[in-house]
């Protein structure tokens, strides 16, 4: 959209001011992260040097240290297991439902649909209190399964929301053609609709994976030392009697956020729709 106002000089000045504001904002938003990255590349004495060092020869010692720790590797594997299981479960359960939501005007549809939305938005702590009690009576606490089920409370609604939008954008002629060729509803769904919906499923999986990877609260309550996830392990670095281990903390922090940042940029196109629960299409 081109709305031309003012002379060329005024426009130039405006552009310069805009760039200035953006540069200031970018520095302010990224500085914390860059500084932590810097700390993770310093030796222990360098971290605590006063005044802080701005130029130094980077070291990878904390990364080597963290990656060699058994509990870090274990927590990494745990996080991978629970978040990918939660995503898989939500996809298997949620994708067919999203298709039904998009194609059938059945009774109670909008009620069920908005219940799913509410499920995503209610405070997790409120679901966690009874969930913990029920799981501990069933002997499920500290298992991977309990965390996977807890993660489903946010990943299932997300899958259904995103996939419904995707199926609605898919022209119904696609299935009609399959039916003319003799396919049943099931085969049309499995053989024709699902392959076409693959990009949507990829986007939904990435967004869910990101949420599950980032979760702290559910995992903090429902896991123990053997099943803890990375965020829980990280929180443990900052407490304890020995004080904060700055090197381990900054290096592991960087290792934890690296995959999420990669995921997020991969799904950037769908980020807005995902984070606004479908209220805004990005």
């Amino acid at each position, binding site marked *: 959209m081109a709305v031309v106002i003012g002379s060329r000089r005024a426009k130039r000045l405006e552009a310069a001011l805009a760039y200035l504001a953006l540069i200031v904002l970018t520095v302010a938003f990224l500085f914390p992260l860059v500084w932590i990255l810097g700390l993770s590349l310093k030796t222990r004495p360098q971290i605590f040097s006063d005044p802080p060092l701005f130029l130094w020869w980077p070291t990878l010692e904390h990364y080597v240290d963290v990656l060699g720790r058994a509990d870090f590797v274990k927590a990494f594997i745990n996080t991978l297991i629970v978040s990918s299981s939660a995503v898989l479960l939500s996809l298997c359960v949620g994708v067919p439902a999203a298709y039904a939501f998009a194609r059938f005007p059945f009774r109670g549809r909008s009620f069920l649909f908005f219940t799913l*939305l509410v499920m995503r938005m209610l405070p997790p702590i409120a679901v966690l209190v009874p969930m913990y009690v029920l799981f501990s009576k069933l002997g499920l606490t500290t298992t991977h399964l309990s965390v996977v089920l807890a993660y489903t409370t946010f990943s299932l609604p997300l899958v259904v929301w995103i996939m419904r939008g995707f199926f609605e954008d898919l022209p119904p002629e696609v299935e009609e053609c399959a039916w003319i060729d003799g396919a049943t509803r099931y085969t049309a769904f499995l053989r024709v609709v699902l392959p076409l919906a693959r990009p949507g499923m990829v986007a939904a999986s990435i967004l869910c994976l990101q949420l599950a990877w980032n979760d702290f*609260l559910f995992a903090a309550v429902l896991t123990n030392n053997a099943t803890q996830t990375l965020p829980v392990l990280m929180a443990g670095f900052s407490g304890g009697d020995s004080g904060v281990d700055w090197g381990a903390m900054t290096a592991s922090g960087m290792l934890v956020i690296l995959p999420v940042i990669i995921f997020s940029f991969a799904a950037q196109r769908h980020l807005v729709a995902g984070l606004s629960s479908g209220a805004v299409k990005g």
Partner: protein
Amino acid sequence: MSESSRIARHPFTVAPPSPAVGRLARFSLDRYFLHATMLPTFVVMLCIFGLPLLFSFYLSFTGWSLTQELLGGSFVGLANYEDLLADPVFIGSLGITFGFTAAAVAAQLGLGLAIAMLLNLDLPYMRVFRTALVVPMMITPIVGALCWKLLLDPSHGVVNYLIGERIVWLGMPGTALAAVWLVNVWHSTPYVALILLAGLRSLPSEPREAAAIDGASRWQMFWHVTLPLLRPYLLVALLLRTIFEFRAFDNVYAMTGGGPADSTMVLSMYTYLTSFVQFDFSLGAAASWLMLAMSMLMCLFFIAVIRRRDAH
């Protein structure tokens, strides 16, 4: 196209022997298909959401401890709710949660709108800035909060070095709450900016062109044209951020744990400590139901807004 017309346009199934039988067969086939697709989601929702919430509703009216049978608690009426409302920490946490939510959402919307307007300018390299500015929201919240704790460290933190003072940020009630607020704003402003940017990009250009021809100034254009057009997006961002800030937990847990002197005790933190540190699940259930009731109201409002917009 409406849903019903979409369905009505599916007249073909496996070659029907006669129209009436075909319709019947198709009808029941669709029913089976509908059940098969909806049932798993329905069951999962019931098991991980419906039943736990019902159970916590029951818990909130009983005196119950973890050693008892699942339904073995004694009925105590509203005693748990009365205890909560008599607890100054809980009453304080209500005020802190609402104040914190309002302050965080206001800052996120203001800053987010400014960033979205800047990123919407038709200038080169905007993609670079857009990519850089959304990074904070991608960071694992607890990791972000822990990193900020190091930055705010009283003796070795870079923030104190930059301002040349030795402030114990997380040790004093006023600054602790401000620090948690700052981290929330840092983390979530990009969300708002992205939603509003999507809104700005989808606005029709005609009203702005008309205003430009009529000689509107930049400020008039923003205030009388862009902002009113952007209202639905602002409303969505406002409601979503309110709902999500209301349940804020990770930052508080990592940075202050609710202290000092309960100054950062938001409702989630209160419920967490009651349930999983003091192991008073009945009181925790009561607190979580009060939280649920409040956020349910906000959600219903949000849903009403989307439905009204969809209807238009």
